[in-house]
């Protein structure tokens, strides 16, 4: 248990090792540690960002889907409305056309009736005249009687 120069040797060795450690061991190791820390932090950041983006995208997708559905139902509604409108219009048109056709037919019929009436009238007048002629046995002065016959015909 003697104190001797070993104490100096030990001190020199101590300072050498500590110096070497400071110069060549500590910096690269702590640098690597720091860099890895940064890398991991960045990675975690990126992951978080990605998950946030994903959520956002999901939200967007749902919104788009909802909008699409709304639009589709709107279109369907419109189409339904338009269809019923078209049907209504067609009905109206058909009714109007029917009315028109009916009126036209009626007019034609009236016309036909009038024409027939006219024809009948004139025929009746002629018959009446000829009947009268037969009754009177002589020709009636057609000129003189024409007025009468016409009058008669008009009364019929």
């Amino acid at each position, binding site marked *: 248990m003697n104190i001797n120069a*070993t104490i100096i040797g030990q001190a020199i060795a*101590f300072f050498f090792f500590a110096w070497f450690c400071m110069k060549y061991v500590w910096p690269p190791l702590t640098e690597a540690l720091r860099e890895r820390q940064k890398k991991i932090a960045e990675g975690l950041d990126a992951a978080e960002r990605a998950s946030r983006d994903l959520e956002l995208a999901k939200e967007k997708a749902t919104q788009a889907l909802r909008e699409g559905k709304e639009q589709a139902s709107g279109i369907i509604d419109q189409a339904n409305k338009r269809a019923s409108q078209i049907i209504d219009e067609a009905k109206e048109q058909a009714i109007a056309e029917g009315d028109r056709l009916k009126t036209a037919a009626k007019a034609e019929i009236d016309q036909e009736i009038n024409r027939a009436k006219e024809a009948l009238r004139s025929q009746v007048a002629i018959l009446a005249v000829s009947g009268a002629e037969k009754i009177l046995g002589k020709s009636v002065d057609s000129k003189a009687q024409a007025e009468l016959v016409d009058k008669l015909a008009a009364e019929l």
Partner: protein
Amino acid sequence: MSAEGGLTTSGYIIHHLTNLTFGKLPEGFTRYNGEVVGEGGTWTIAHGTEASTMGFWAINLDTMMFSVGLGLLFIWLFRKAAIKATADVPGSLQNFVESIVEFVDENVKSSFHSRNQFVAPLALTVFVWVFLMNFMDLIPVDWIPYLAQQLGVPYLKIVPSTDVNATMGMSLSVFALILYYSIKVKGVGEFVGELTLQPLGKFMIPFNLFLELVNLFAKPVSLGLRLFGNMYAGEMIFILIALLPFWLQWVLSVPWAIFHILIITLQAFIFMVLTIVYLSMAHESH
């Protein structure tokens, strides 16, 4: 067992606690084998109690060899890891080294608040080096000394931290750093002021100085002797266990070795933490 000192118990113990010292024996000194040292003295390996006659200018070869060897092992291993250190997936060596580095770094950050690039690597060196030196304690006490004896080396103490020179060498280095940083950071004036003007003010300067000097010198002494004492006692118990019959030794040596794993780590840790704390105190004004 011991070569000289016969097979006696005390001889065995003393042999195991003697360093391999190289130094100069003075003229006219009667050596262990009866030889008388000739004119001008002689440089030789000490036998028995000759080391105490050699005075200060002798060196414990075993302590120096093992401590420097273990220190080189430390810087080789850590330098190897440092060269290959990447921020990518670390290998197993890098993992191991990084865990120690981080552990030390955390300790430094928690108790050292000034800026100094030297303290953290110093703490790492202290921790790993002291741990390795203490670790030699776990190698069965007879193995390497016996092997050395077969090779003609009379004494070999393989645990450098059981040599008071090694532990005091380190603690005095720390003490030198304490003084250096105290003066560098605070300046001579403030440092002297710290030593003389507290705790009792300027009218009690001699008393203050006495207290503060005791306080100052207690640091390296306690730092070095604590490690030495723990390791020396531990080694002593291993030696005592080794005196038991060989079939009984494991009953005591195994539990003691397991317990010693805790002690060697703890002592290395304490040495490191105290180094950090002392240097931290040297950097901060009170």
